[in-house]
């Protein structure tokens, strides 16, 4: 898979993340980081499913690279998760910060596991 395909997939993933985050912030008055939570959990579910599919079908790693490393890697974001958690904490929203941290970790890990399981189950 060419390098440019990965870059293009990443560009799309980033745009999708921004669009969804913008949309959810607009709908919810933007105080809580639902956008980042949504992309991170949905992206983890998708990556788990992709990994399961590639594993089962013994597919070339090309798809995992373009869709996984490229699109989903850019669609999800770790740095924004950290920054938003810090921001909540500094604004005195300590409970929200802790929930953002624990909730994203639990939901993201569970989503990846679920995606993997579903892909292997349904293959």
């Amino acid at each position, binding site marked *: 898979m060419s390098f440019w395909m990965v870059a293009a997939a990443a560009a799309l993933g980033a745009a999708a993340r*921004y669009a969804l985050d913008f949309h959810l912030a607009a709908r919810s008055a933007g105080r809580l980081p639902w956008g980042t939570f949504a992309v991170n959990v949905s992206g983890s579910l998708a990556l788990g499913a992709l990994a399961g599919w590639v594993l089962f079908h013994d597919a070339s790693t090309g798809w995992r690279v373009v869709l996984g490393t490229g699109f989903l890697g850019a669609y999800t974001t*770790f740095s924004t998760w950290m920054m938003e958690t810090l921001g909540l904490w500094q604004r005195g929203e300590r409970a929200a910060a802790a929930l953002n941290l624990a909730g994203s970790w639990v939901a993201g890990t569970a989503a990846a596991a679920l995606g993997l399981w579903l892909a292997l189950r349904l293959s």
Partner: protein
Amino acid sequence: MSLQQGPRVLWPPLASLLVVAAGGGFGGALRYALTLAFPADAAGFPWLTFGINTGGAALLGFLLTRLPASGPRAAMLRLFLATGVLGSFTTFSSFSLEVVELAGQGDAALALAYSVASIGVGLAACAAGVAAGRRSRPQAPR
């Protein structure tokens, strides 16, 4: 249904999406290049993702603090560098899947250690970036 003055903007403008996409292509490509240069050992601690995620968090903290809060130029730089490059450079999905894979290999301790390290160091790195950003800002005239 609430009454509002004027239409509410529910989706970003195309120009902003393109700026984010451009930065995103760059950030994702950089991360991909690193995965080629440093292939991961499936059973070990995912050092590359860890480094990318914590390093990216530090840079984001610095950038968002250093950039002026308002103005069109700062907004454009934020979209390109923060949302675009750094948002795409770091990855949550790889982190989640790696935690699952480590646990699936029977190494729950490593999965937990990786999780705690990523989050702990990630937050510290981000805070350090913010502190450095504050120190580096030009002082307002008295």
